[in-house]
């Protein structure tokens, strides 16, 4: 067994400022993981405003690092490696994280590693459950939705993904349409509890096409039309209408994710498990459906705090890169777009700037 290595992870690619200290090199020990959410700052705008996010990250990152190091019960001098999200994400936040990490690495004389945020999510089952390669990962969050076959810490094959919105975006939008609180995931799930999923027929986009690609934009629009029709007919919505729409929307989302997961799993061999990550994996209805589809493979859903954006996953992905011999220089670039799988044709984004993710 090699000597333990203590890694500081830093994450600031969306609306969470996070830092974590991980001890790896033997049985991994997460010494601390702190997250400061900007939800309140963005609440009035119905979504994350990039400039507001960037401003908040720039004045919070070093404070979160201090807190993570203090909670870990160590000093900055006990760190061995600095790992930071270098993309993909909102560039303002990513840049602040990368620059703070460079300052720390240079000042402490430590190696620096730029980590792909998606690799952080995709490798989390190895941190939490010691899952061996290869496994299938469904990454499903506010910004992303893709199936990844994970054959190694740098070996990802995208089997499919959304061609438009991410499920988390759709949950947020539906919540907005119905006057429910942001973030939409928890409020839609809560409202759906008392709803009848069969009352309104909502589409299951792309289920009629082969493959694992998904689309949620049409589902969102269908909810908008349904709401407008009800409002026109009755002059507003009853609480029961809101509950039924939420239940119907959640059922459609469940059916799409479950069927596409079934197809993704059916096309692969040798898998050690089916893992999920991302905030949407917190939804109990979706989670139960995915668990059922996984059978007989083990279903791995990391604890919620490690499913949503966090820095522990960045520290872990940094560790995997570090032990593979990678090192980044002080000229490390922040990348707004950084697909994990560069071989597959891009699903989202193209042209001069390249694929989004």
């Amino acid at each position: 067994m090699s000597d333990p290595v203590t890694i500081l992870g830093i994450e600031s690619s969306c609306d969470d400022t996070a830092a974590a200290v991980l001890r790896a090199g033997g049985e991994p020990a997460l010494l601390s993981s702190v997250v400061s959410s900007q939800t309140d700052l963005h609440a009035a705008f119905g979504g994350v405003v990039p400039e507001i996010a960037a401003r908040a990250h720039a004045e919070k990152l070093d404070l979160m690092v201090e807190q993570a190091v203090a909670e870990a019960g160590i000093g900055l001098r006990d760190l061995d490696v600095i790992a930071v999200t270098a993309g993909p994400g909102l560039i303002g936040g990513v840049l602040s994280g990368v620059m703070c990490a460079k300052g720390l690495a240079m000042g402490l004389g430590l190696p620096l590693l730029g980590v792909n945020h998606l690799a952080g999510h995709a490798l989390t089952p190895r941190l939490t459950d010691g899952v061996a390669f290869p496994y299938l990962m469904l990454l499903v969050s506010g910004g992303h939705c893709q199936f990844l076959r994970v054959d190694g810490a740098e070996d990802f094959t995208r089997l499919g993904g959304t061609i438009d919105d991410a499920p988390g975006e759709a949950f947020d939008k539906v919540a907005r349409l119905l006057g429910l609180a942001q973030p939409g995931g928890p409020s839609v799930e809560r409202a759906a509890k008392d709803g009848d999923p069969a009352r309104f027929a909502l589409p299951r986009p792309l289920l009629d096409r082969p493959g694992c690609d998904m689309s949620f934009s049409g589902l969102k629009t269908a909810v908008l039309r349904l709401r407008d029709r009800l409002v026109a007919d009755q002059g507003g919505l009853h609480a029961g209408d809101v509950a039924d729409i939420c239940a119907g929307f959640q059922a459609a989302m469940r059916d799409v994710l479950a069927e596409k997961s079934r197809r993704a799993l059916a096309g692969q061999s040798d898998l050690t498990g089916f893992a999920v990550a991302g905030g949407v994996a917190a939804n109990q209805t979706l989670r139960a459906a995915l668990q059922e589809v996984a059978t007989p493979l083990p279903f791995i859903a990391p604890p919620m705090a490690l499913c949503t954006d966090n820095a522990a996953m960045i520290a872990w992905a940094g560790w995997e890169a570090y032990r593979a011999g990678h090192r980044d220089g002080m000229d490390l670039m922040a990348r707004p777009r950084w697909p994990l799988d560069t071989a597959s044709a891009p699903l989202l984004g193209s042209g001069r700037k390249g694929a989004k993710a």
Partner: protein
Amino acid sequence: MPSDTPLILSFDTSAAHCAAALLSGDRVLAAQQVEMGKGQAEALMPMIEAVMGAGGAGLRDLTAIGVGIGPGNFTGVRISVSAARGLALALGIPAVGVTLLEALREGHDGPVLASIDARRDQLYLQRFAEGAHRGPEMVAFDAIDDSWSLPGLMCLGNRAAEIATKLNAETGPAPFAPAPAIARIAARRYRDGAPRPAPLYLRSPDAAPARDTGPVLL
């Protein structure tokens, strides 16, 4: 390096440049400034290493860091401020935020009107004058009027000549380049226990409140 002489590293990326300087007492040991429209995030740390090397000092010898906090390019300001906060935390030394308006005026004793381009035909303005300080604030170029005038006023910075013509004032070059100016100001302030450097934006983020406020609940 004599221990009683403060050694200050300063840097700035708030405009279309990347600049760094190393100051010992009031002597600039090394300074660099490269004009660049983008790429400051990649260039800054190597430039700091080069300036430290040219000045013959190590990071552990530093007494404090001075950093440009704008006003200027939002992303550029955050690049330097984030790096300064990370570096200061690692070294256990203070980081001092210095505005670029203060940096323009550094080394000039009389009344100064400092100006920095705020795009869209606007300027960030600050007047430094005994008993007659004003700003910093964002002002449309066309709205700069006589209320900014003072006897003996010297206009420094972006569009200083045009502003000087408007106000019937003098103009000239700023006495120091940004990084050395920031270092000199930081050398005077690092013991003050000021809060950690934060960007000075002077312009609100572009963001409109959500349009769809949801349906009437019956």
